[in-house]
């Protein structure tokens, strides 16, 4: 008796996977209802989302956009029969939230300034753009304050001239006087120019050729324009200072290192609000008697110092992440310290630190709200004034909600951009 077994002689053809594990159903089963516990959690989460939307959506879509006062709002909402927001206040005040008390007919200057900011940033961020655009990026730091504050054009021109003098000195005096003297003069001459000469010269030219636009007081600055100005200027200035501090902290020169460490740890150890108190009350005491400079400038100085300490730590992380071989290879090529930094170390270290730099920027931008505590009219400072307005008394939710959404849009898009940049710059050798 033969003991035959069933032996398959050919392969079965491939089958479709079971319907319950593919497509939308499969996805739902796997991600939402994979176990009894998971199903319960999913249902609870759904209930929570439903509750949240049921509360928030009718409130948000209330048709009060054109109401011109709180009482008008209340009438519209009473007709609706459910609680709604009063959006009229945003329609009426949104320009103020953007520009503060900047003169209405001069809004174009602010808008132009921020458009030009992107033009100036573009060649830095996107390397395939023509290199000639970098000349505009170099001019922009002098153009920007002039557009915002107005006044005679000769002051920014004279300030820029100082840098030109320094450059020319280092370039053309070296063959005549030797490198050492040229380097020293390249620092000393511009300082002499700025302190003693530029003011009278600017006044002189202005009296002959009065090229000026209407000047705007710092008091008029406010809203998001103020936040962005403080944030952008502070970050732009803190980047070079931060690089120097990071190099100082890494260096093996004892005095330089201790000074850098002392500065960084001091700034990082105190809250920003105390530095702002210094800006509002103490900075004038530290300056020569009789100096009384602008509150926004003082705030920008302190926020810059604050940001550069954090920036230094971010860049130090980037420097530490570079393999030692990079430093040794640069030495082996015979590059001196600054050439090695410029050509080998910094391009790589800065690339590694991009996420940190962007998150520092987001942090500084969010922290600009603190200036409301020392009385500047950033969005939060404005909101106090608006909440006290008799026509719109006590619309807390609408105003804070609006400010929060605006900040969220700014910060969230910046963090997404940094993630994109990180992926783009990832050359894959690590």
């Amino acid at each position, binding site marked *: 008796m033969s003991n035959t077994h069933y032996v398959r002689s050919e392969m079965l053809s491939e089958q479709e996977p079971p319907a319950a594990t593919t497509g939308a159903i499969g996805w739902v089963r796997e991600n939402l209802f994979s176990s009894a516990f998971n199903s319960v959690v999913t249902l609870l989460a759904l209930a929570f989302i439903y509750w949240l939307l049921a509360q928030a959506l009718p409130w948000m879509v209330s048709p009060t956009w054109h109401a011109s006062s709180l009482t008008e709002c209340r009438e519209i909402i009473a007709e609706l029969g459910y609680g709604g927001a009063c959006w009229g206040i945003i329609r009426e005040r949104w320009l103020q939230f953007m520009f503060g008390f900047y003169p209405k007919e001069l809004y174009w200057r602010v808008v132009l300034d921020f458009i030009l900011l992107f033009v100036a940033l573009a060649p830095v961020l996107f390397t395939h753009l023509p290199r000639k655009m970098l000349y505009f990026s170099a001019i922009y730091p002098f153009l920007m304050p002039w557009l915002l504050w107005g006044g005679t054009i000769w002051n920014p021109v004279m300030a820029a001239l100082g840098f030109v003098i320094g450059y020319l000195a280092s370039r053309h005096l070296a063959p005549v006087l030797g490198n050492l003297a040229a380097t020293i003069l390249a620092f000393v001459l511009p300082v002499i120019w700025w302190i003693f000469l530029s003011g009278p010269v600017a006044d002189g030219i202005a009296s002959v050729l009065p090229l000026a636009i209407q000047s705007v007081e710092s008091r008029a600055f406010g809203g998001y324009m103020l936040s962005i100005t403080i944030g952008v200027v502070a970050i732009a200035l803190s980047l070079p200072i931060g690089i120097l501090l990071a190099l100082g902290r890494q260096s093996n020169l004892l005095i330089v290192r201790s000074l850098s460490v002392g500065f960084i740890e001091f700034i990082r150890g105190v809250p920003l609000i105390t530095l702002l108190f210094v800006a509002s009350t103490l900075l004038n005491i530290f300056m020569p*008697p009789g100096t009384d400079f602008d509150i926004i400038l003082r705030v920008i100085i302190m926020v810059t110092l604050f940001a550069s300490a954090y920036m230094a730590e971010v860049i130090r992380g980037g420097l530490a992440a570079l393999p030692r071989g990079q430093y040794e290879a640069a030495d082996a090529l015979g590059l001196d310290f600054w050439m090695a930094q410029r050509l080998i170390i910094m391009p790589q270290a800065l690339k590694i630190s991009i996420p940190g730099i962007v998150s520092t920027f987001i942090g500084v931008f*969010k922290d600009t709200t603190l200036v409301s505590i020392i009385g500047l009219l950033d969005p939060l400072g404005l909101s106090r004034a608006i909440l006290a307005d008799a026509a719109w008394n006590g619309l807390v939710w609408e105003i804070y909600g609006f400010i929060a959404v605006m900040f969220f849009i700014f910060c969230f898009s910046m963090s997404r951009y940094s993630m994109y940049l990180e992926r783009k710059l990832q050359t894959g050798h690590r």
Partner: protein
Amino acid sequence: MSTMTDPPKESFKLGMLIYDTRYRSITIQIVALIGFLILAGWLINNTINNLAVLGKPIDFTFLRDPAGYDINQRLIDYNSQSSHWRATVVGLLNTLLVAVLGCITATVVGVIVGVLRLSNNWLVSRLMTVYVEMFRNVPVLLWIVFTMAILIETLPAPRDFRGEDPEASMLLFDSVALTNRGVYVPEPLFSRGLGDLPILPDTDSPACAIPEDGGPVSDSCGMFQISLDFLLIAAVFLAGLYASSKIRQRADRIQNETGDRPTTWYLRLGVVLIPTLAVLAALGFHLGMPELKGFNFQGGIYLRNSLIALWLSLSLYTAAFIAEIVRAGILAISKGQTEAAAALGLWPNRIMSLVILPQALRVIIPPLISQYLNLTKNSSLAIAVGYMDLTGTLMGITLNQTGRELETVLMGMLVYLSISLAISAGMNLYNQRVKLVER
């Protein structure tokens, strides 16, 4: 045979200070030092000149003057006749109070959110992502004022608790009242208490003056009062924990020798709980419930809205950052570790406690502590909701009343700096301890 000759002796030239690496480092340092000293000297000189013009040289005696303002939320005795110095201490304690409360809550919420963000339930992980992004991308100051506004707008007023059919009622067996003025919770009371222990006798305080009838000095004499009851309870509790850890060590030893682990959980629980409960009973521990009397609640501990708003918003804000840290820490441990531990035959909970957590904590703890530091520094925003912390007392009202900007702001900065440096010194110690020993 050739003779070695010395290289030609270089004469020192001025240019060598810059071009010769032997001297350059010294040149740079000296230039840096001189530059720093000039800058510092210039600033100090300006300051002295300016203060001379203003007619208020640096002087810290204002700290002894009566402060003349009230602080409504405080941990130690204080009244408007107390000195500015005492107001500063009250503020510092308030800063520390909200920092400690915030760190605890932020850790709990942050760990939960961080773990849930890795959940395989899509909806839950998305919800947590929304939470994290929402809090991380909006300024903390806005969250603080917003939370304050929410508390004031949505919670019932104390009068709503009155009447036959009140609109609002107390929670947890009539022990907790949430009102738009603040939260009332029960307070621990001791009917056979031991009294207070005054420390740092403060001869300036009126409480320390010897009464005219020659009676004993008042009990409340002293900078601070520390409740002896709490000291005793804490001591007994800590002793219990110590005994419990001894029992665990003994169990470990027995396990190592024989392979069997004696059951010790009831011993360890008992040695902590029974003495503590006994002391509580001996001291006559009971809870003082808040009660509605007239227009407001009396009794219990009154946590003002400002404290609650600050605490909640700082915790939720910092928790979003902690969640990211926890998530990164867990993701940093490769799956191979779990699998290797499972291959060794460890139970899942032991894998977590013996293999994953020790490695993840090494990644998590340093950034976690810097978040604690951030929370402590952010607590200085209390001034926006009127919570009287160090910024509110010393750098707020004291500054405005005495006009001593330089002294108060410098003192405030130094206090924050010492808190920060103390915390980062602790972190460095921890890093030293858990550092991987590399070859």
